């Protein structure tokens, strides 16, 4: 087994034992990036020099016997939606192409404090809006298992870089499935924590009441290790929960008996790909063989989840993205220079706008991509006078019912299992012109965001064409421990997570 095929937990053990240096590990990943990144294009930026320096520093401190952080020497890639002080943070948008925040996101500060090696920033759908990473203003990312296919999204770069062995760990964000869906399509582990478990400070907001930052990794153990670093209360985020963070990296391996797993019959209804259904049913048999009690549960309002999500998320997005107006930072449209010796030429269609309105309109027209604009329009419409009650308020009510469904279900079961997506990775360009079909990809994942509960996606098989298939497990609020332990039990007896694409 090569160095890069080891899990992060195994690499960390070698680093701590002195069998491996951070410099060696970082070099190995940088070499891998140099080789496969041109095909996968998972990154918006690779910090090769900074990573090497950081690794050398960690090695020196470890040699000297200094105290080092929990992730000391492990390379971590972070989605380009997280602010990194002084370094470009683009959200894969033309709007923020040159934006360098003067502050670190709290999770970035925590990674630095844990002595992780920040190896690069990963590609995404613009402002995390999309499920294919094709909405990146820079370039699409390709699925390492089939370069003609999408890695999913919006954390497509974060999933693809782990799947392609370009980083052992990465950090994504999940508003409607943006960690779990690409994890599922790329055959890696992705965890969306409970809302409030991880600070959102410095996470460029898409939909504030749904956004969560979470770990992506090769194994459940690795995800537990990274989550432990990311999680915790932050006084700079009013919505972050002041709940103690368990030692996930230890508790993940604790035995688990009498696990009750719920399944929802509607999740296996029409539209589910046969290979996916087979893989999920096989995974459930694995759980039964481990002594789990798999039983049917009801989530009566789940069928409204996508509609509810596509009201709430665009409403919040339309507001959160209002700040990108070309005035204070980011992309700014400027009027074309006047022809020499002549008057400036006003553009006819907007001749009666003020200069200010023209600046706003042109800046936002040129700075944002199609999908972002579509969602801003959806949200602006739904929040408008006369529509608020029918859309936003109604959506909030349904959201409460969806949360109530899960409260009821988790009285009877510990976890709810389902597919992550109805089908394996789709072709690049396949859904670009069918946004509604694209939105329906979120069918299995959005409920967890609406309910605020944690969910994990992990590989549970492959399609006949060799594409990974993901299993999703959901747990009650702040039930990350049982979620991780339940997932870890599966990985103890399967090796789907040990497979790597041939690149």
């Amino acid at each position, binding site marked *: 087994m090569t160095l890069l095929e080891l899990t992060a937990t195994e690499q960390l053990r070698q680093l701590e034992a002195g069998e491996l240096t951070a410099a060696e590990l970082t070099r190995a990943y940088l070499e891998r990036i140099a080789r496969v990144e041109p095909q996968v294009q998972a990154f918006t930026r690779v910090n090769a020099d900074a990573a090497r320096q950081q690794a050398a520093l960690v090695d020196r401190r470890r040699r000297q016997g200094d105290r080092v952080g929990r992730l000391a020497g492990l390379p971590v890639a972070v989605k380009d939606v997280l602010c990194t002080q002084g370094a470009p943070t683009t959200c894969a948008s033309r709007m923020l192409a040159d934006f360098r925040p003067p502050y670190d996101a709290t999770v970035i500060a925590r990674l630095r404090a844990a002595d992780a090696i920040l190896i690069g920033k990963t590609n995404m759908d613009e402002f995390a809006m999309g499920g294919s990473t094709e909405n990146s203003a820079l370039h699409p990312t390709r699925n390492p298992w089939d370069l003609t296919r999408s890695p999913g999204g919006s954390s497509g770069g974060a999933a693809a870089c782990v799947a392609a062995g370009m980083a052992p760990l990465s950090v994504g964000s999940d508003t409607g499935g943006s960690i779990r869906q690409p994890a599922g399509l790329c055959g890696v582990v992705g965890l969306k924590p409970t809302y409030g478990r991880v600070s959102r400070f410095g996470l460029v907001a898409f939909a504030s009441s749904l956004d969560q930052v979470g770990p992506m990794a090769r194994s459940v153990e690795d995800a537990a290790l990274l989550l432990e670093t990311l999680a915790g209360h932050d006084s700079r985020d009013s919505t972050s929960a002041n709940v103690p963070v368990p030692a996930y990296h230890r508790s993940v391996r604790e035995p688990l008996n009498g696990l009750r797993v719920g399944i929802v019959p509607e999740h296996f209804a029409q539209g589910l790909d046969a290979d996916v259904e087979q893989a999920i049913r096989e995974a459930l048999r694995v759980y039964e063989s481990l002594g789990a009690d798999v039983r049917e549960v009801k989530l009566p309002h789940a069928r409204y989840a996508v509609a509810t999500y596509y009201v709430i998320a665009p409403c919040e997005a339309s507001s959160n993205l*209002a700040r990108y*107006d070309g005035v204070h930072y980011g992309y700014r449209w400027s009027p074309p220079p006047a022809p020499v010796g002549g008057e400036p030429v006003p553009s006819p269609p907007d001749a009666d706008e003020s200069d*200010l309105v023209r600046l706003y309109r042109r800046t936002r027209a040129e700075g944002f991509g199609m999908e972002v604009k579509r969602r801003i329009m959806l949200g602006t419409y739904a929040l408008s006078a006369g529509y608020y009650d029918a859309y936003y308020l109604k959506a909030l009510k349904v959201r409460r019912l969806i949360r109530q469904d899960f409260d009821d279900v988790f009285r009877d079961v510990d976890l709810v299992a389902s597919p992550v997506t109805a089908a394996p990775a789709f072709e690049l360009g396949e859904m670009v012109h069918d946004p509604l079909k694209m939105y329906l990809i979120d069918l299995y994942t959005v409920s967890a965001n609406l309910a605020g509960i944690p969910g994990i996606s992990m590989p549970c098989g492959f399609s006949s064409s060799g594409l990974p298939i993901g299993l999703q497990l959901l747990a009650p609020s702040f039930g990350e421990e049982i979620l991780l332990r339940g997932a870890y039990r599966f990985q103890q007896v399967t090796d789907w997570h040990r497979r790597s694409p041939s690149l």
Partner: protein
Amino acid sequence: MSPTFVTVIGLEVHVQLATRSKLFCRCSTRFGASPNTQTCPVCIGMPGVLPVMNGEAFHLALRTAVALNCSIPEFTKWDRKQYYYPDLPKGYQISQYDLPMSENGYLEISDPKERFETKRVGVRRAHLEEDAGKSMHDDAQGTAESRIDLNRTGTPLLEIVSEPDMRSALEAKTFLTELKLLLTYLGVSDCNMQEGSLRVDANVNIHVTTGRDVAATPIVEVKNMNSFRAVERALAFEAGRQFEHWRQTGQRLGDVPKQTRGWDDASGVTRPQRHKEESSDYRYFPDPDLVPVKVPPDRVERVRSELGELPAALRQRLVQHYGLSSYDSDVLVNQGRPLATYFQQVADRCGDGKLASNWIQQDVLRRLNAEGVSIHTLALRPEDLAELLRRVKAGDVDTTRGREVLDAMIAQRWSVDEAFSELGIESLDEQQLVALCRELVDANPKIVEDVRSGKIKAAGALIGQARQRSPNANPSRVRQICLALITGDASLP
């Protein structure tokens, strides 16, 4: 009969709360710093940052709301009010929309000159919000350049919305004066209008009695009033303008959209203001970055118990406890809490509220105004003034001499004793006084004659002579003794 009208006024007052830091970040709220030096990623709305509520701002808002007799709901939340403007960097203002932190209060106003009857002006609601930045437009040089200062962005404001309960410009001005006094007593704002700590917009229309019915004119919002005097003038003007306009057009409420007019203080007129370019659909929705605030009833009661004595109660107490007239009580209380406290200290020590009130109103206030100082910096401790007044009351010194003593005490930093001895004030004993008067009576047979023939006033000349011989001679006593001597009253020693 020509039509008459009443003016109907409601006010919206924005008060900057006296917190050290802004409403959702730790930047300073100090006024007057160089542009854009009191900003941070949070208040300038950079990507990914989040607001965290300033608990002190909420506390000050709560104090004010309770003092305004508002009911305080147990649950209140934050909303985003969305519009585009360069001095609003997030593209929305964090405010409170449908569940404000307080509602349904009132403030009682009255006029000591009784030009209107004492009334309660309803307070519809008071809610917290963040301020926007300042835009400075400079198109003087044809460059149409605008500059933005974000120092003010995020400063906590309490928006107090009155019911349309005021019926004259005077009532509106009185409401504002009383509100400002209350805020000052609470210590929640410095209420400095020049620095924008207190801003007033008014909604005004008139109800014209036509003989057939009562016609309400379209409501006009009046802005840009930079002093209470300006508010009074603007509203008086606007009522008259609406009456003229109604006479010409007959336009009534509902016929035209609400108009916004700006007060031009120099010309003394209101003028229509250009409408904001964006529509007024603010697309309010709950701010998902902030958690709702829960205010349990016991917290409200604790705040209520810690309010201290407010102007209305203090006025009553000064009347009841110190025997002041309502007018005098009003004058003292309206000077602010420090002067009212000073008065009480003096009154308590000298034992005469009216005397203390007279001296403070006539002598102390005159001096404060003349020298432009506050009661804190006046070089006259309340115990010293009280001691002087005790002696005035005891007849040790007359009022005129007492004023000289007061002046000397302040100018020379003397105590009462020092001033008395430096000015040579000592009370003559009765025998000296009688001896002095006897001499005067003997030396002035003409006056004695006049008095005996009924011209009592003639005795005044004797008082003047007595003062010349001894400045310490108490004029009223001299007069008494002289009259007794002349009329042969036997009760003299």
